[in-house]
């Protein structure tokens, strides 16, 4: 499989086929991410397309010292933030505190800290996770999707967001704890 950087080089020279290969490679993880951040299929498809168009027009600015995938998802993340800012919805930033931190990952396990009933089938838990994802803050949702749906490494996520790996890990665990509690509480 041809390396991303070579495909980008070809695409910059106007090679249509090379950019089509890039789209084929990243359309699935991108839609997984955008879809869960936006929630609505048609808009998610439009957004995903817009991001690939925007990326193409910025291709000249891509620096090969970074991974192409992290650069692409950085564009996508900024695009989502811009969209929410324009819509005057709550935008998110990694610098902002996430409110009441009652499920911080550093805390000890409480005695009664079992929330997911054992009788739940995996399929049922998946459904509940999807629903819980809509309820957690978008800045945590984003990290959870990248880590567990798109299976990015913590280093890759840290590169996308431009913050330390340790912070990313804590945020991902925080997201998981929030999801765990919501999944357990759902009727």
């Amino acid at each position, binding site marked *: 499989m041809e390396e991303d950087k070579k495909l980008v080089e070809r695409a910059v020279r106007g090679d*249509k086929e090379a*950019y*089509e290969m890039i*789209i*084929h490679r990243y*359309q*699935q993880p991108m*839609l*997984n991410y955008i*879809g*869960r951040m936006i929630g609505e*299929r048609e808009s*998610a*498809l439009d957004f*995903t*397309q817009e991001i*690939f*168009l925007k990326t*193409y027009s910025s291709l000249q600015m891509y620096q090969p010292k970074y991974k192409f995938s992290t650069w692409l998802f950085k564009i996508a993340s900024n695009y989502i933030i811009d969209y929410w800012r324009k819509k005057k919805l709550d935008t998110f930033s990694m610098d902002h505190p996430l409110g009441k931190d009652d*499920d*911080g*990952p*550093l*805390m*000890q*396990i409480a*005695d009664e*800290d*079992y*929330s*997911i009933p054992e009788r*739940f089938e*995996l399929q049922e*838990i*998946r459904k509940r*996770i*999807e629903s819980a994802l809509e309820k957690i803050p978008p800045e945590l949702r984003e990290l*959870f999707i990248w880590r*567990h*749906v798109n*299976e990015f490494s*913590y280093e890759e996520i840290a590169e996308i967001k431009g913050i330390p790996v340790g912070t990313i*890990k*804590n945020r*991902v*665990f925080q997201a*998981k*704890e929030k*999801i*765990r509690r919501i*999944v357990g509480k759902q009727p």
Partner: protein
Amino acid sequence: MKCLTVQQIYLYLEEELSPEKASKVKKHLVSCDKCRRALEERRLLHTASLSLPQWNVPPNFAEKTIEKIFPVEKRKFRWAPILATACSSLFLITVFSAVLQGQKLPAFLFGVLRTVWGFIEKTSLFAVKLIKVSVNLVKVLQRFLEMISQELSSLTGSLGTEIQVISISLTLILLFLTAFIFRRIFITGETK
């Protein structure tokens, strides 16, 4: 070892701990029921998270995106260059064949010029005749319209004023109705 933190459980699950730390956690888990249950619960969630369904990408998504980036330009069929190329090719072929048949080039070109001039002359005569016929046609049309207007004035002269007003009003209403019925055809050209 003290009971595990949430972070340690997740790091252990994701195999992000160093071998030494992982071994300590493993030992603790053997002896601590609370941490083992906490781990199992999070393992279940972890497994489910890794197998969440993918959002379905339409099969032609990449192609459609590419079409937006590189719009396909519809090539316009240009007649002028084709016609010019065809004429010049025909002329060159004729010249070459004439030369090959032993004709002298100046004499041949003079012959071609004479033919072209003859064509222009005949076309001009035809155009003049066409104009004359058109002028006569206009004259006939003019006489015909004059005749109709004379007939109409003699007809309206014999009618009373009231009947004239009624007939003009009826004609206007009829015209208005026709325009209303066929407004769509007049405005947009649509027949359906």
